[in-house]
């Protein structure tokens, strides 16, 4: 094989092949006799454009003069248009689209201008994303020298300060470019043509170009940035990619015409300037929980903050011109909390914060940012100048808590929105929170939340004395005073700071329902609730019957009177059938209203005779604890004290004996009423057509009404003792239930027996006497006869 090159025949054959190959190729190019001159004979004439299948119009005209001036002026057309079949030309060739043809031709550009020889900004062209003609034009390609020369030509006019161009929308657009400053930019070498190639390539310039608005023009130009600066290169930095995606114009950061190269600027810029370059834009960050957080930093805000002299990196440790870590917090809340922890508390140490315990506690529970802001960190002096309410809210709008001595935790956060919607919106915080001011913030100690709330009631009483006085006498007030944990006070119904006047029946009811769910469930069946649902403005809420502030326990409350507040004229209405012949007096109706609750006749459910004990001196119900105290026994022993035989039912004698004993210590009187056995049934007021109208339902010896003795405890919970049916019909009921009598129902049964005995006695007297008279008739006869 090595000897092959020495063989003269092989060498001859090789020569023939090489010569033949060369001649064959040359024939292909020149044999047909096509040169640029020849091409321009036709294409140098202005002719109608070629219409492509996609409808595009493709000009086939080449200006011979301009072509000759271009760097390719000495080259024949076929050098680039190699794909043409010259044997068939000028028969039209098939061109799908302008872009497709440009791509085809550009492949040949890269054969001479190799990818390595092109600058990095030609990356897109190399990848085939951009065709060369877009920047360089198809036929009039300039050399760098020509570009520099022509740029000078542009700046001849645009380097002079001239009147701005007035756009159709009225904007004024300066056309001035400072030549010196432009010469220092990165783009000076590539000249105006790199960006303004459309103007540059236009033959008509300086005929004014049509520009709708600055924004439209900017958009158009900025698109061209990406021709050279490929997106993949720009998106290397996540933040930068985000900025591009968001559509923030390149020139917003990088400027145009006069800005120095970014690398130079980056080196020279201060860190704050560097950060703000991007962060002064309306940038946002989407957190994993879906919240969108602004990461914009307003320059003017920063300049007015107490941190204006700090560097961004003083707080945002880990960041630099070359490093931009990303925080991975899930939510805004977490973001605020952690930022405060790692940023603020680096300088503002625990030791410093502890000087103000409230502030320390707040800092530990909430984010500093919530009060002090992100970048607009307020100086303390500025806070002190705020109006008093805003001053308080600086801290109290945060998630503050107060710990009680017993370990209970109370939120002392004040929601500004709630405050603004309250009826107290025009009051100052210090109007209620006496002793507090901008200068003074006492730290008080409370045993429990209940202890704290006691004070709240006193605060309310300063303005609302009448309501508080009623409340204190009412069931809620008494339960609260006795220390019942869930007993409501002013705050429970009216709220802490969102103090509201409960105006509508629905609003009022919703408050009560929070605790009295069973009552509400029963109320749902009533005509009152149906009326409320229908939107009847006169439909009653709970407070219309039970009172709003002076709520009384059912056993002592005169609920009937509350019914009559709305149901005016019902006495007369009832009098049509409930009257005392031979007259018709409303007092007879009143007697019934007094002895029975309206619900007894107007609601569905079992009835009961309820006996309660009221202290003569105060007219208030005696509590079971008081009973135990005066009798010198424990509360649990009261039941066995009443029910001596322990059968679970109080007999008449037992009640009488108990009351006698109790009366020796404290004067009490019994109060009897017909009520619903289950108090909740009293809420089920039915339509009047379903009401009881038959007297003998109650006035009946066989009426199955359960007797109950009710005593309330300190927590105002009623304690029931079952009364034997006979207890209310025994002679013992005469002294024990002196003021309560329901015809027939509570009659003293023994009198019936006495009546029978009396009748029999009367008859026997007559018969006896008559018998004696008959028996003694002979004596009288003898006497008359004188014997």
């Amino acid at each position, binding site marked *: 094989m090595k000897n092959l090159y020495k063989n003269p025949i092989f060498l001859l054959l090789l020569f023939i092949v090489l010569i033949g190959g060369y001649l064959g190729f040359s024939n292909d190019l020149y044999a047909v006799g096509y040169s640029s001159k020849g091409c321009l004979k036709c294409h140098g004439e202005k002719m109608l454009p070629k219409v492509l299948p996609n409808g595009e119009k493709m000009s086939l005209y080449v200006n011979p003069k301009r072509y000759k001036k271009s760097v390719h002026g000495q080259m024949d057309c076929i050098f680039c248009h190699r794909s043409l079949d010259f044997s068939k030309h000028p028969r039209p060739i098939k061109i799908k689209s302008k872009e497709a043809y440009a791509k085809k031709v550009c492949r040949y550009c890269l054969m001479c201008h190799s990818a390595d020889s092109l600058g990095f900004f030609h990356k897109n062209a190399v990848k085939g994303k951009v065709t060369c003609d877009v920047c360089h034009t198809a036929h009039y390609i300039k050399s760098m020298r020509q570009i520099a020369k022509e740029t000078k030509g542009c700046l001849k006019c645009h380097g002079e300060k001239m009147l701005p161009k007035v756009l159709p929308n009225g904007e004024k657009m300066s056309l001035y470019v400072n030549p010196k400053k432009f010469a220092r930019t990165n783009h000076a070498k590539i000249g105006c043509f790199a960006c303004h190639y459309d103007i540059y390539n236009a033959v008509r310039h300086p005929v004014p170009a049509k520009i709708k608005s600055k924004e439209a023009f900017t958009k158009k130009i900025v698109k061209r940035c990406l021709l050279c600066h490929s997106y993949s290169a720009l998106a290397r930095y996540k933040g930068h990619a985000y900025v591009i995606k968001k559509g923030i114009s390149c020139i917003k950061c990088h400027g145009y015409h006069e800005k120095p190269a970014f690398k130079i600027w980056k080196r020279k810029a201060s860190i704050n300037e560097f950060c703000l370059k991007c962060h002064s834009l309306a940038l946002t960050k989407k957190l994993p929980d879906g919240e969108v957080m602004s990461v914009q930093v307003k320059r003017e805000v920063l300049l007015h903050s107490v941190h204006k002299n700090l560097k961004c990196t003083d707080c945002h440790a880990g960041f630099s011109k070359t490093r931009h870590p990303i925080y991975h917090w899930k939510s805004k809340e977490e973001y605020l909390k952690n930022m405060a922890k790692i940023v603020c508390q680096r300088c503002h140490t625990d030791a410093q914060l502890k000087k103000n315990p409230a502030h320390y506690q707040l800092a530990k529970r909430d984010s500093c940012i919530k009060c002090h802001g992100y970048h607009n960190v307020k100086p303390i002096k500025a806070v002190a100048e705020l109006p008093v309410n805003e001053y308080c809210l600086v801290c109290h709008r945060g998630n503050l808590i107060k710990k009680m001595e017993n370990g209970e935790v109370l939120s002392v956060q004040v929601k500004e929105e709630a405050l603004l919607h309250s009826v107290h919106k025009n009051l100052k915080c210090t109007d209620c929170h006496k002793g507090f001011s901008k200068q003074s913030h006492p730290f008080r100690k409370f045993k429990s939340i209940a202890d704290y709330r006691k004070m709240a009631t006193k605060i309310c009483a300063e303005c609302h004395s009448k309501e508080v006085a009623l409340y204190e006498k009412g069931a809620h007030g008494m339960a609260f005073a006795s220390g019942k944990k869930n007993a409501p006070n002013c705050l429970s119904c009216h709220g802490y700071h969102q103090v509201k006047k409960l105006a509508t029946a629905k609003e009022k009811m919703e408050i009560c329902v929070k605790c009295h769910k069973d009552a509400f469930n029963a109320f749902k069946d009533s005509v009152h609730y149906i009326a409320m649902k229908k939107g009847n403005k006169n439909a009653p809420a709970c407070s219309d019957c039970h009172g709003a502030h002076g709520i009384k326990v059912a056993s002592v409350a005169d609920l009937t009177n509350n019914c009559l507040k709305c149901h005016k004229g019902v006495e007369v209405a009832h009098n049509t059938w409930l009257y005392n012949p031979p007259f018709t007096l409303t007092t007879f109706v009143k*007697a019934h209203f007094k002895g029975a609750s309206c619900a007894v006749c107007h609601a569905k459910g079992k009835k009961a005779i309820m006996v309660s004990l009221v202290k003569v001196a105060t007219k208030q119900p005696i509590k079971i604890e008081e009973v135990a105290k005066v009798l010198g026994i424990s509360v649990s022993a009261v039941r066995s004290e009443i029910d001596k035989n322990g059968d679970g039912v109080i007999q008449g004698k037992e009640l009488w004996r108990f009351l006698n004993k109790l009366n020796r210590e404290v004067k009490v009187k019994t109060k009897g009423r017909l009520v619903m056995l289950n108090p909740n049934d009293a809420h089920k007021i039915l339509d009047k057509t379903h009401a009881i109208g038959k007297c003998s339902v109650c006035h*009946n010896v066989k009426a199955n009404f359960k007797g109950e003795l009710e005593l309330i405890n300190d927590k105002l919970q009623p304690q029931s003792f079952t009364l034997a049916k006979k207890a209310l019909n025994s002679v013992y009921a005469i002294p024990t239930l*002196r003021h309560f009598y329901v015809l027939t129902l509570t009659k003293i049964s023994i009198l019936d027996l006495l009546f029978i005995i009396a009748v029999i006695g*009367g008859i026997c*007297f007559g018969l006896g006497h008559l018998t004696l*008279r008959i028996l003694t008739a002979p004596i009288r006869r003898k006497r008359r006869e004188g014997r």
Partner: protein
Amino acid sequence: MKKRVYLHPVPVRIWHWVNAISFIILILTGLQIRFIGKTEWISFHTAVKIHSVFGFILLANYLLWFCYYFFTGKFFKIYIPPFWKPVDWISGMIRQALYYGYGIMVGKKNPHHPSPEHKFNPLQQVAYLMIMMVCIPLQILTGLVLWDPVKFAWLGKLLGGLQVVSLIHTGLWVFYGFFIFVHIYLSTLGHTPLAHIIAMITGYEEEEEEH
């Protein structure tokens, strides 16, 4: 020979019979009211209506009696026993009691001879005084309280409470249950069984003249 004494003037006779009818109706309706549920020969509502109406008739009738006896001044002569002469009064009562218990059996004469001024024997005098001045007024007053416990609340309170009022009213009802039979029986003890009853119709009492 029998003599006729005009004992019962018209107003007294009217009063008596109205009173008698009212009493019977009130006792019976009272009975129905108390035993409703166990027996119902008239409805509770009707029983109460009748009871109330006759209660007022009784009241009006009582006022008629009261006005008659007080304005004529007969009340003091007829109804007031001679308690200022206690020996005579008590011995009179004993005599009368002995008569009813013994004398009437053995054919002794009635120690009391009625006259327009001394209509009642000593026992009758005490009994009727009590009935007319205590029992009926109490029955009417307690009846009024039970009829309208609100209008007459003051009275109820004065009498010691509704239960006490009811006790009095019912207690007297028990008493009348006894009294009405005794009264009817005693009315047959005239010189003929119907003598006193006829006298209450005609006004004239026939009495055998003593020689």
